[in-house]
């Protein structure tokens, strides 16, 4: 089976060139100005499109096992493919949670039946309870490279320090959801004048920033590597950027909702806008966008968090936190990067190359692994490619999403730029903006 992408702008880490890409048997066979493809090759018209390494999402809640009504590994993979993703890192807060070989193996096995590479982030602590460490070495032997108790942070500093010390020689990376739950105090939106007026308990920026500060010091003390999940405040980002510049082995991601939506969205008490960490102030949104444009951000990650519709029909404080992300993350990132002036190299850096490096999915990373992601568009590379059309405009419709859930905060919003085709593990899974 061969696929040829015709006349797209091929995005390299530093330069871009218009040309064809030939994929044969799961591998990029040839890249050139005009390739003489085999007669049976499937042709994809990539004119006016960007062709780059397939997107990697570091932060997907696939809900399986446990809450298949909201999402399954299969439906999440379809949503991811439509969003241009070739690899997803499944977060461990399933029921039961991914804190042992059995549940991790289950998700990996289920994931292998989908067209994408489904990776797993294992839990740091047993049951994500923040007490005893989970068997990280056993899970690492299955290929798990990221560990997180996401949904909550590891509250106890001694547990977190031990986890960092244990993880470091295993060559895996801990990923922290930075929010001190005691300080966030059961809050439901950003703490400030608006939460006070709305009578909603706030989650202060401080709850996030304090844990970022603490963990930076733990990283400094242990020498371990660490990834900060969905940073949402200007200060959190500044802290991690500064620490990284000092040589600490830290990376961070930001989520599209945090750089496109602010706390004002909560004014109508619509639970579609409830998320942890919460939507912050306009100034925070501006700071995140600025960091993205400066190239300071390691990765854009979706924190795709499906919830069954009935749960989002509850009052704001009773509804679960989280929103969908996979299917519109690329468009939102493209817009935030200043569409149509968006620099495609930065775009593919935050959507693919950056996250692939953090998830250790590159060719040079130690096996075992899935196919390689986030590399160059060059012969010999595994064929994980995304074709993105910057000139396409489309409107989000919550009932037209591939996800099993509908809790998008962008329903009805017109977006710029859309994934036209996704080639994952050498197969064309999305063509002409629809699943094949």
């Amino acid at each position: 089976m061969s696929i040829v992408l015709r006349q797209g702008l091929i995005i390299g880490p530093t330069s871009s060139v218009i040309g064809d890409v030939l994929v044969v048997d799961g591998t990029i066979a040839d890249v050139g100005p005009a390739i003489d493809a085999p007669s049976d090759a499937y042709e994809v018209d990539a004119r006016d499109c960007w062709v780059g390494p397939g997107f990697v999402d570091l932060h997907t809640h696939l809900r399986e096992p446990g809450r298949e009504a909201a999402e399954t590994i299969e439906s999440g993979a379809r949503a991811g493919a439509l969003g241009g993703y070739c690899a997803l890192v499944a977060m461990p807060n399933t029921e039961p949670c991914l804190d042992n070989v059995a549940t991790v193996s289950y998700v990996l096995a289920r994931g292998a039946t989908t067209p994408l590479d489904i990776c797993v982030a294992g839990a740091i602590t047993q049951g994500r309870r923040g007490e005893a460490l989970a068997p990280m070495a056993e899970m690492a032997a299955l290929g798990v490279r990221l560990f997180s108790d996401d949904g909550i942070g590891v509250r106890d500093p001694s547990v977190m320090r031990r986890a960092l010390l244990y993880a470091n020689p295993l060559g895996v990376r801990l990923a922290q959801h930075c929010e001190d739950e005691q300080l966030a105090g059961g809050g439901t939106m950003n703490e400030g004048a608006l939460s006070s007026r709305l009578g909603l308990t706030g989650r202060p920026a401080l709850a996030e920033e304090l844990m970022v500060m603490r963990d930076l010091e733990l990283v400094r003390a242990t020498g371990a590597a660490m990834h900060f999940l969905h940073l949402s405040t200007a200060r959190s980002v500044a802290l991690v950027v500064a620490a990284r510049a000092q040589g600490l082995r830290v990376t961070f991601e930001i989520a599209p909702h945090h750089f496109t939506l602010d706390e004002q969205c909560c004014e109508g008490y619509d639970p579609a806008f409830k998320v942890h960490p919460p939507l912050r102030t306009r100034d925070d949104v501006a700071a995140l966008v600025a960091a993205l444009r400066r190239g300071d951000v390691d990765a854009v990650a979706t924190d795709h968090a499906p919830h069954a519709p009935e749960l989002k029909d509850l009052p704001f404080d009773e509804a679960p936190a989280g929103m969908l992300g996979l299917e519109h993350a690329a468009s939102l990132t493209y817009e935030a990067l200043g569409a149509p002036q968006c620099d495609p190299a930065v775009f593919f850096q935050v959507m693919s190359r950056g996250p692939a490096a953090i998830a250790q999915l590159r060719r040079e990373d130690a096996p075992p692994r899935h196919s390689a992601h986030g590399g160059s568009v060059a012969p010999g590379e595994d064929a994980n490619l995304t074709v993105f059309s910057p000139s396409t405009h489309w409107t989000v419709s919550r009932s037209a999403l591939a996800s099993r859930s509908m809790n998008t905060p962008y329903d009805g919003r017109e977006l710029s730029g859309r994934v036209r085709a996704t080639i994952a593990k050498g197969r064309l899974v999305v063509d002409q903006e629809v699943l094949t």
Partner: protein
Amino acid sequence: MITSLRGQSLLSLNEVSRDAILEVLNTAESFVEVNRRTIKKVPALKGRVVASLFFEESTRTRLSFETAAKRLSADVLSLAVASSSVKKGESLRDTIATIDALGIDAVVLRHRSSGAALQVSRYVPHVRVINAGDGQHQHPTQGLLDAFTIRQVLSQRRGTTGLESGGELFEGLRILIVGDIRHSRVARSDIAAYSTLGAEVRVCAPGTLLPDDVEQWPVTVATDFDESLEWADVVGLLRLQAERGSGAFVPSLDEFTFTHGLTVERFARMRPETLIMHPGPMNRGVEVDSRVVDAAAAIVEQQVANGVPIRMAVLYLSVAGSGESS
């Protein structure tokens, strides 16, 4: 900004204009007279259906609203939460849809979640929604009845009527609100009503019970409780939830009484004409001393009594002016 409640839902007092508030107060004067009649019932809402949905128990507010609706000749559908399917996991949207299917003109909603009234008004845009208290957000009819009571009492003392006093009586009136401002929907509605009417509002509370953004509220923060008691023309006390005084927000109820309770000693130093108000039910011996309660009882009872005419006025303006009956 709502400039008149006619045909409108009442979700919050934040967006209600001075004229609209005065319209409710003036209409309530008419209903005070109706409530003095032998036959305390008028046919204004005959054939209309008002659903009373209390997802959080409050016998007083519920009785007050239902009495008001009945005295306007409306049919009252009353949902008893304990016996409904709400506890079986039915979503708020489904519950409202079920009630709406029975044909209703208005919903009176009490809910423990902030914003529930606004959410319901989105689910059933053709139904008028009267917020009877949502979480820590708003309790607009309490704010209206507190303003009404102040106007009534002060007018009587000046030998005039509330109607004649209009809104001028509130200009520069010094109102002190004491207690758990942070968690209080009553405080939010009271402050909105008083400040819109032109009163000068001070709040006084332990630091943990002040809202985080209090500097953006239309109030000043008093640091000296005793001085403020002398300053005030009206003192509004708030109920302190016992769990907030158990080390969570203040070290103990006794400590709260020590710093912010209206004790006999403090009461003795107040000007005799100062009005003491409380939305009830009172914690005797916590925010207010038992003996002070007895001295202030008349006004507090008047607040309770005014609940019915104020809620009649709100229902009348909101529902009678809402177009054809469904």
